[in-house]
């Protein structure tokens, strides 16, 4: 009885998983098909040849834009973690007048869509002469209300006695931040890191605006160019590009998941 119940549960779960995963599986399969096959509506390619992958690399400086994307995402992630964790620390562990108000003001900026401020941001970046520089692609994303909010919520769960014990031991703010707050917040830092990496990796509009030459463009824009270059879109090549671009994001998720352990705070108090 238990086995049947379990078995049927698995069947349902597998079906739902397939349904949700279908676009990616299909993209993966299409990446091996010729244009003709795609247009005929085949589901399974006749042969698994790598022609499309080779074409994708040849049609575009794909490798270069992948490296760009990788660098931009890593710099943004590190920058965001540093800036947001310091801001969150101040909001939690340093008492100052108007702290609460300032925090809510800070968080309320989450209600303004990024697109609404894109023009002033663009003008700022342009005036700074950052067009086609990594600075334009990374620095505007260092300070985010979301990241600060996420980390502040986690920092608030750190018992205040830990801070007091550190103060009695003679730790200053910076050492307490580095030696206690950051290590015990690993979970949240990894969560924020993954989220930040994926958003940056997948961003399209902003990189399109602030880059004009091939050398500084990111992979997402490269993909888009693959799509429109010829009259008849070579879907096989586009999908090959998609698969290549998706690989790093999947890797980040798989690697990050291992670190998303729960219960890091266990045992601190009581």
């Amino acid at each position: 009885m238990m086995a049947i119940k379990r078995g049927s549960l698995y069947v349902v779960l597998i079906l739902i998983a397939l349904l949700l995963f279908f676009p990616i599986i299909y993209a993966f399969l299409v990446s091996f098909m010729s244009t003709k096959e795609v247009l005929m509506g085949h589901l399974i390619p006749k042969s698994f040849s790598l022609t499309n992958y080779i074409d994708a690399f040849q049609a575009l400086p794909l490798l270069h834009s992948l490296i760009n994307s990788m660098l931009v995402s890593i710099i943004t992630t590190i920058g965001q973690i540093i800036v947001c964790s310091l801001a969150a620390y101040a909001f939690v562990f340093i008492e100052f007048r108007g702290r609460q108000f300032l925090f809510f003001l800070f968080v309320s900026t989450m209600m303004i869509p990024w697109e609404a401020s894109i023009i002033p941001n663009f003008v700022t970046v342009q005036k700074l002469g950052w067009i086609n520089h990594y600075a334009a692609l990374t620095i505007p994303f260092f300070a985010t209300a979301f990241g600060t909010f996420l980390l502040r919520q986690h920092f608030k769960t750190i018992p205040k006695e830990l801070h007091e014990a550190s103060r009695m031991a003679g730790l200053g703010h910076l050492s307490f931040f580095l030696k206690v707050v950051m290590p015990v917040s690993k979970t949240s830092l990894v969560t924020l890191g993954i989220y930040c990496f994926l958003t940056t990796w997948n961003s399209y509009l902003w990189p399109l605006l602030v880059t004009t030459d091939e050398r500084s463009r990111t992979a997402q824009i490269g993909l888009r160019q693959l799509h429109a270059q010829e009259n008849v879109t070579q879907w096989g090549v586009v999908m090959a590009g998609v698969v290549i671009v998706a690989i790093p994001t999947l890797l980040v998720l798989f690697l990050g998941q291992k670190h998303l352990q729960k219960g890091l705070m266990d045992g601190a108090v009581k």
Partner: protein
Amino acid sequence: MSEVELLNVSKLYGNKQPYIIKNLDVNIESGEFFVIVGPSGCGKSTLLRMIAGLENISEGVLRIGGEMANHWSPSQRDISMVFQNYALYPHLNVRENIVFGLRVKKISPEEREKRLLEACEMLNLTAYLNRKPRELSGGQRQRVALARAIVSQSPICLMDEPLSNLDAKLRAHMRGEIRKIQRQFGTTMIYVTHDQVEAMTMGDRMMILNQGKIQQIGRPIDIYNHPANTFVASFIGSPQMNMCEAYYDGNSQEIRINKDLKLTMTLPKLKTSTYIIGLRPEYIHIPQPNNPNQTIVQVEINHVELLGNDTLFSFQINDQQWIAKWNGQWLFEPGDKISIALDADELCVFDKDTRQLVHSSTRQDHDELQKGVLA
């Protein structure tokens, strides 16, 4: 020499709120085990945190080792502290937790290791050095917190209800351990608790706080025998002291509790008036024949608790429930009418309005008994 001195210390949050602690004056001697006890919310933890430097002192002076320390940072005061919830660093193992503070103080690795092993030996932690706090039981975590305080070798150690999260058996064991360690190192210990057993058994002296004010400071046994006011009388001692109003007639030298219960006692200093009298549960006796000091009265039992070695039973005196504690096992039932004996010498008398002690029990027989058994 007084190690920690509080002169007229007060604490208030903001400007208008009531005082959390008001005009506190106390000297804590070097090497003393000083217990601060009081009900929750009486300001005892706040006081401890003020000594530690974790809270500002609103008014008054704090001296540590004779020097004014109001504005010293917590680490300048060279004080170790054990928190109620231990405050262990969850990402560090036992070893790192214990030496964490030493590393900050830049103490040499050899010295660190020496102190670590010494403390772990003493507290039986050697087997757990590489475990994380979450892999330890409550008692073990408590010992790690204790070890952290020991290795710092600070002359002053503060403890904020360190045993309140442990079960009764472990608590009894740790009471002894902490006292032993304190004696061994000669640490000046300031120990906050709401548990009057801890206060009675551990302290050289204790201070009873209520609503931010000192009620009494003294040796635990003196406080037990001569409580300064009704609050102290009811707070120290378990079961608590029985109390009720009674009328003292200076002419007939009689304390009248009610129309059936009168005790003859000489209180030359007191004028005829209504007072509050107090009597410890163990001073309600089994009537003995031919004892002229006894006043025998009949009461109706309304509740019995058999503890095995002792029997507690309660009865009504005027509008108060009194509890008596008799040695041994007494199989009474609620509703039973029994005779009990009271001795006027054992009464404490408090002023009805100020609630201060005006006459304390004059019983001294334990001293004499003690002389009989001492070798």
